[in-house]
């Protein structure tokens, strides 16, 4: 199967199951509201009744300076709360992944809530193990491979005659890091898919399936992945282009801006489901 066919298949699947995106969006919004609440309360307390609230900007260095001074001591507690919520979100996301992948791979069946939750529960521990395994992979990629690259680059950078040399090297380093991350991310995605598609209970085995699959067609799979990344980036570019005029003063524009940002969050969530759906199409079209 060609990668474009995989993408169009994936698109079809995600469009048939909008409920999945809704579930993820509601969870995202609820957690974001909880995490942002203390900050929003500070903003309201400090600026809600101050004339400074008339002129404050979304990124306002002067006001941020004041807020850091006033609330700096509360910052560790706020950060801790944020981290706890973030971790909870991560765990919940691992749980929801079961439902997402489960329902996306069950191409024709509707994404009923009952079936979704059944998948969440059924796949949870497998996905937890896979998540932990992926952490090891990321650590290896970032820690070992990038360290090696750094060591390789250092003598060149140390002997540089102008700023260009370290600038170029450090950007190459970043590019290598991003490409490596994309590869690991892709491998883990295929392992997630293999768990469901191959009804594989052991995640190591699922991972082996994914690796065997990728070994045979690595570049095509990677091209598919990078194409999806490109689509996501294009979406982000459109988002920011439209957001700019919405930043002008005006009550209507503030409301419009809010909805536009929420549409973008939905888009991002949807692209994530598209990654899974399209890669699942690709995976299932190449039985081995």
């Amino acid at each position, binding site marked *: 199967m060609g990668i474009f066919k995989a993408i169009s298949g994936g698109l079809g699947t995600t469009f048939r199951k909008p409920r999945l995106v809704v579930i993820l969006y509601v969870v*995202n919004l609820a957690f974001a509201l909880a995490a942002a609440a203390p900050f929003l309360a500070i903003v309201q307390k400090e600026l*809600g009744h101050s004339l400074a609230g008339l002129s404050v900007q979304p990124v306002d260095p002067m006001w941020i*300076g004041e807020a850091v001074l006033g609330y700096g001591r509360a910052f560790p507690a706020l950060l801790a709360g944020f981290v706890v919520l973030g971790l909870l979100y991560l765990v919940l996301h691992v749980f929801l992944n079961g439902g997402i992948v489960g329902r996306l791979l069950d191409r024709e069946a509707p994404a009923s809530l009952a079936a979704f939750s059944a998948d969440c529960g059924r796949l949870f521990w497998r996905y937890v193990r896979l998540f932990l395994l992926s952490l090891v992979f990321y650590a290896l990629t970032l820690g070992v491979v990038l360290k090696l690259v750094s060591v390789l680059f250092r003598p060149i950078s140390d002997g540089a005659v*102008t700023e260009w040399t370290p600038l170029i090297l450090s950007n190459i380093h970043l590019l290598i890091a991003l490409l490596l991350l994309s590869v690991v991310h892709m491998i883990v995605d295929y392992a997630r898919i293999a768990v469901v598609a191959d009804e594989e209970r052991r995640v190591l085995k699922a991972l082996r399936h994914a690796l065997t699959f990728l070994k045979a067609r690595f570049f095509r799979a990677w091209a598919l992945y990078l194409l999806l990344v490109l689509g996501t980036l294009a979406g982000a570019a459109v988002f920011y282009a439209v957001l700019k005029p919405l930043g002008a003063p*005006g009550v209507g524009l503030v409301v419009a801006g809010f909805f536009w940002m929420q549409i973008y969050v939905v888009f991002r969530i949807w692209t994530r489901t598209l990654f899974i759906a399209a890669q699942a199409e690709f995976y299932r079209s190449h039985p081995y």
Partner: protein
Amino acid sequence: MTAKRTASFCLAALAALAVLPAAAAAQTPPAPVAGAPGLRYEIWVELDPAAKMLLGREEIVWTNPTRDAVPDMLLHLYWNAFKNEASAFMREAAAEAGDRAAVDPQDDGWGWIDVTDIRLADGSDLKPAFAYVNPDGPETAGDQTVARVLFPTPVRPGESVRLRIEFKAKAPRTVARSGYYKDSFFLGQWYPKPGVYEEGKGWNCHAYHRSSEFFADFADFVVHITVPKGYVVGSSGKAGESRADDSARTTTTTYRQAMVHDFAWMADPRYLKIERDFIADREVTASEYRETADLLGLPVEEVRLPDVKMTLLIAPEHKGQIERHFRALRAAIKYYGLWYGPYPYETVTMVDPPYRTGSGGMEYPTLFTAGTRVLANRDVLDPEGVIVHEFGHGYWYGLAANNEFEAAWLDEGFNTYSTGRVMARAYGPGAIPLVFKGIPLSSVLRVPKIFDFETSRVAAIHAVRTDPVTAWSWEFFDSMSYSMNVYMRAATLLGTLENLLGDPLWSRIMRTYHMRFRFRHPTKADFVAVVNEISGRDMTWFFDELLEGTQAFDYGVESLASVEVPARLRGVFDKDGAREVWTDEKIEVVEDAAAKSPGSGPPARSYRTTVALKRYGEARLGGDAKVEVVVRFADGSAETRTWDGRDRWTRLEFVKPVKAVSAQIDPRGVWLIDENLANNSRSTDGLRRNVVKLMTRFLFGVQCVLQFFGSWS
């Protein structure tokens, strides 16, 4: 500055208070730059790039300007700060970082300076009477940045002493301000330099500390610099005769400069050297001269600027930024010149610091270093800001030459403030620099643009509790507190003073202070005296409370409420010997009847508005200073009151036919140093458009972060 001179200025200030409440800028005619002061240097120095060494011979003629018989001389040997880990510089750097590797002279690049021979002009050897000393006490034991030489007989008042010194100096590898990298050199503080002799007190000659700069007397310099052929040299002063030695493959050039207190240079075989002229008549219009003269209360002739020869030494990879460099320098020469006094030297040399020599953003007389990146953003005013700042040091440090060890705010604070003014005038606000992996992102991400005074204010409010602005440089809590207090808090306080005193007073104060203390060593007392003299007010409290103090300054509006004033009061009242009882019902009946009577409309209402003001910070207003409060009402009217701010709180009352909509303390934003501007006002309506926008953007940010992490789980 001697105690005697300070006293005479205080007297002058008192006299001025009596007769001259709003004086014109009291112009002292500029001292001629040709005049040789009591110090002369002639130095022969040769650079050996392979060994990273300077070989030097120096002749110093010092004339004792005081009434003391001076038995010795203290000399700075600054490069010994980089000699080993026992130096004050290295120890303070390591202590602050909690890590001895904080300053690491890579490639074994320690720097040092040895005086190999020192004698009087008659040949008598002073080496046996030469020893390292620790003027800053036992904490700097082991430091070798100050040496003392004992004269065979004391130098009597008015007498001169001529010293012949031979020295060898090894350049440090990229530590601070001086250094080499490959075959590039930036050489500052490279020669033995006497401290400043203060009458009755002795030599003022501190060790080279981690957080400190320099202090020296005005002198005439003649410096003969020898470098390998092909090297491009930039130097303080004006280049004179040059001769090549073909057998040694070297070139020697002589540089001369009168009335400067330091001398720095650079050498690099790759550098581009570009010369331009600052032509005053092209840069300043007749109306600008007139406006300046009117503002300062001076004749136009006195504010005219001279032409200046500008030289830029720039790395080839920054060639595309040559025009940016010159534009900024022209703006600096123009505005510093118009505001504070004409630039008195013929030349100024601007150096794009050689790569990895750690020498960027540093000032020396008639020469300074800037600093840029290969990818420089147009919206970020860098290198412009650093060029304006370092040229500005030619005024604040170069000309009004305060002791940077003991009162760094007098140059860094004044100059940060002045840089902000020039940048605002010449460029407007600049984007906050945002660089990732050397790639400028400020334009792409549309980061906010802000003025320098705003950045300074944010730093100032964070620094106020840590140290007074006036502490000695190495006695600040850490280098962060040093820079935030000395640069930014001082600048914010000067900005506050500007707002408080207003023009033309403020401009005249700055002009007078600068011109009066050109080619001298002013102190805080000198500046306070000029402020009091020109303003005709006693502003001493401002410096005591806000510069010397470490208390936060924060005034605000605690509450705002408007309640209806009842037309009649309830209760039992004595009236004409009888008792009258007024209840709600009775009041209603009477009001209804009054409303229905022909010719009368609804009863007139009135509201009592109460505004509670608070002093949240410990710092207080003093002298005749007051803070303004404006209360705005629903009918568009406004009432302005003032408060002396001495107590913790005060309450203002207004009775008006309408309710108040807002109350604002310091509506004109005079008190830049106020640490919380959000509490400066209160309005009766809630949630505001921009606040909602801020909230939705923040929420969106959190959603994106969560979504990003979710996609890796």
